[in-house]
């Protein structure tokens, strides 16, 4: 068993890698890495689920393999495939040279997709495997993943079982477009990433956009919180707050005020109904963003 990962140290290291994690997320990640078990991160779109995996890879100096899920995702796209063109040529070449047919299932002909590639870590914690938006895959893939996560091995009919010498760090993310099977969830540590508290969001904005004035960063964080408190179809995530802050910076704003609020709304809200609702309440939201009074 590899060394335990200290929660506080991991949190520090993530911060150095440019990712602000709260105690809960840092704990879930530390547990997953220590116990060599997968971690499932759930949350609304744009709260930083994928970035958490990226930061984790950078903390451990690990290679990151990302598998984007979709309906119909099969082994040929997720795990491995054979290079058919090359196989065919090898057969023809051997025939022309009057040699025996070569081994068509040697390493040369094997195409390693993310799941198989993730088994080839050269050292402990050398690979982070990000299985992104697992809720978009179908039941068949989930069932397959269950086996994969149980012993970090893949069986290829032509080759036998390939097992990992060093299991990868596995991060699954879900937007909850559907419920995952409990059998899969039971095998994972779990953390729900909520929208960040205002202080944490200020920290995130300033870390990603060092050029943004502190006062503007605070305005954007409070403004995003005020927007999330409203009934919107798509409340802004961190990605939208960052876009917003950057847009305001480009507009030359030092603070968020009524003049720049409306023109910049397109960067933070993605539905016309939401923009309309925010415009109608512009005065309250701007005031809340400037910390003058609550919306």
């Amino acid at each position, binding site marked *: *068993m590899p060394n*335990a*990962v*200290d*929660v506080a140290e991991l949190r520090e290291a993530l911060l150095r890698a440019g990712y602000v994690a*709260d*105690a*809960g997320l840092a*704990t*879930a990640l*530390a*547990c997953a890495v*220590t*116990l060599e*078990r997968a*971690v499932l991160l*759930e949350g*609304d*779109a744009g709260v930083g689920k994928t970035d958490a995996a990226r930061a984790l890879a950078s903390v451990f100096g690990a290679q990151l393999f990302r598998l984007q899920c*979709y*309906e*119909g995702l*099969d082994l*040929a796209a997720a795990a491995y*495939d*054979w290079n*058919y063109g090359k*196989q*065919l040529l090898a*057969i*023809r070449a*051997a*025939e022309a040279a009057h040699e025996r*047919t070569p081994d*068509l299932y040697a390493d040369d002909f094997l195409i390693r997709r993310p799941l198989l590639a993730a088994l080839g870590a050269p050292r402990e914690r050398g690979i982070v495997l990000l299985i992104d938006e697992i809720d*978009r895959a*179908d*039941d*068949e893939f989930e069932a397959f993943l269950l086996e994969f996560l149980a012993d970090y091995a893949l069986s290829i009919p032509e080759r036998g079982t390939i097992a990992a010498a060093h299991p990868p760090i596995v991060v699954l993310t879900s*937007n*909850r*477009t*559907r419920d995952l099977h*409990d059998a899969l*969830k*039971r*095998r994972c*540590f*779990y*953390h*729900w990433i*909520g*929208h960040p*508290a205002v202080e944490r969001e200020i920290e995130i904005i300033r870390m990603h956009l060092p050029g943004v004035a502190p006062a503007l960063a605070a305005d954007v964080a409070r403004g995003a919180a005020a927007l999330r408190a409203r*009934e*919107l*179809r*798509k*409340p802004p995530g961190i990605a939208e707050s960052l876009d917003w802050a950057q847009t305001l910076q480009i507009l030359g704003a030092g603070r968020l005020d009524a003049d720049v609020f409306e023109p910049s709304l397109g960067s933070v809200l993605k*539905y016309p109904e939401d923009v309309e609702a925010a415009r109608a309440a512009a005065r309250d939201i701007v005031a809340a963003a400037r910390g003058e009074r609550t919306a």
Partner: protein
Amino acid sequence: MIDEATLAGGFERALRAHGVDAGTRRAATFAETLRRLPPAGMREVYWRARASMLPSIDEVDAFHAAFLEFFGALDDAEALRRLVQGVEPPARREAGEAPKRESVPPRPSEREAGERVAQRAPTQLVLAAVDERLADRAFDELNDAERAAMLRLMRRVRIAAERRASRRRRVASHGDRFDFRATLRGAARTAGELVRRRATRRRTRLRPVVFLLDVSGSMASYARALLQYARVTAQARPAVRAFAFATALTDLTPLLRRASDERLMAALGEAVRDWGGGTRIGAALRAFNDRYAQRGAARGGTVVILSDGWERDDPALLAREMARLRLLARRIVWVNPHRRHPAYEPLVRGMAAALPYLDAFLSGHSLRTLEAVADAIEGREG
């Protein structure tokens, strides 16, 4: 100090007592976590417990109750309460993201709703003569014994199961896509000659069906019957969901397949209790759209709404949410038992607001008319 396994096992039982089914595998994980990463202080115990024992954010309230009860007995209960309250509250309102895949919404038909809602002849329902009299009785006219018999008969109503092409493929002799892998594997046996062509074809999947059941006032007995139909359907095929609503929306899906009849009907009864005169159909639909439909629960499928259309709120909200649902679902079927009366006209404001968005408008008040509902779910003109 008690050992980790005992602690984890005890907490697992405490969770179970609060209705959270974490299971022994999670308890074992929790014990191992405590062993490998010894917590310093209750705050760290809390987060380790949450990462390993909480199945879903939906159950966080029950989790907190169990945590306070179990660890409160071992530690300073007041300090724990402050700790749990200090935990950043999760964003509970779940507005989903925009639909991303296969989003060519079915166009609402140009025909008038009244025209589209064609009269449907019930398809054959195989019933013994003794059951025959039950088949046409309205669900709210049955006595208890008849209702029990009706629930049994429900199994004979045809299950709605419409298929669509999946993105998954399977080997087929006359498939439409060349299968390199299988063809080459065959070629290796025939000295590299591609003798037999192999191909794959798309599999099919069942389209989702969602039942939204109004449990207010006179609808309760119909909701019970339709919920039973949803249950029979869910036991026979995947991708069936059911919700009850009066003023709030309750997800009954987790109970649909496995819970006992009593437990399922009790859950429906709970939903009825939330009814305080007047139904908020628009608000319930909005909750469904935000939390489920927009995330894909109804995409490519049929939504069956049971309601008499008595809307307490502004029907404009109902119309707006119906328009949204129209874009998210493939088909919308409205079941209103009052429609069985020949003189019925959709004069109730809520019903009138919803009508333009419907693909089918049926009575569904008896076993026999449920057959027409099954047809409508599949988009067949009965």
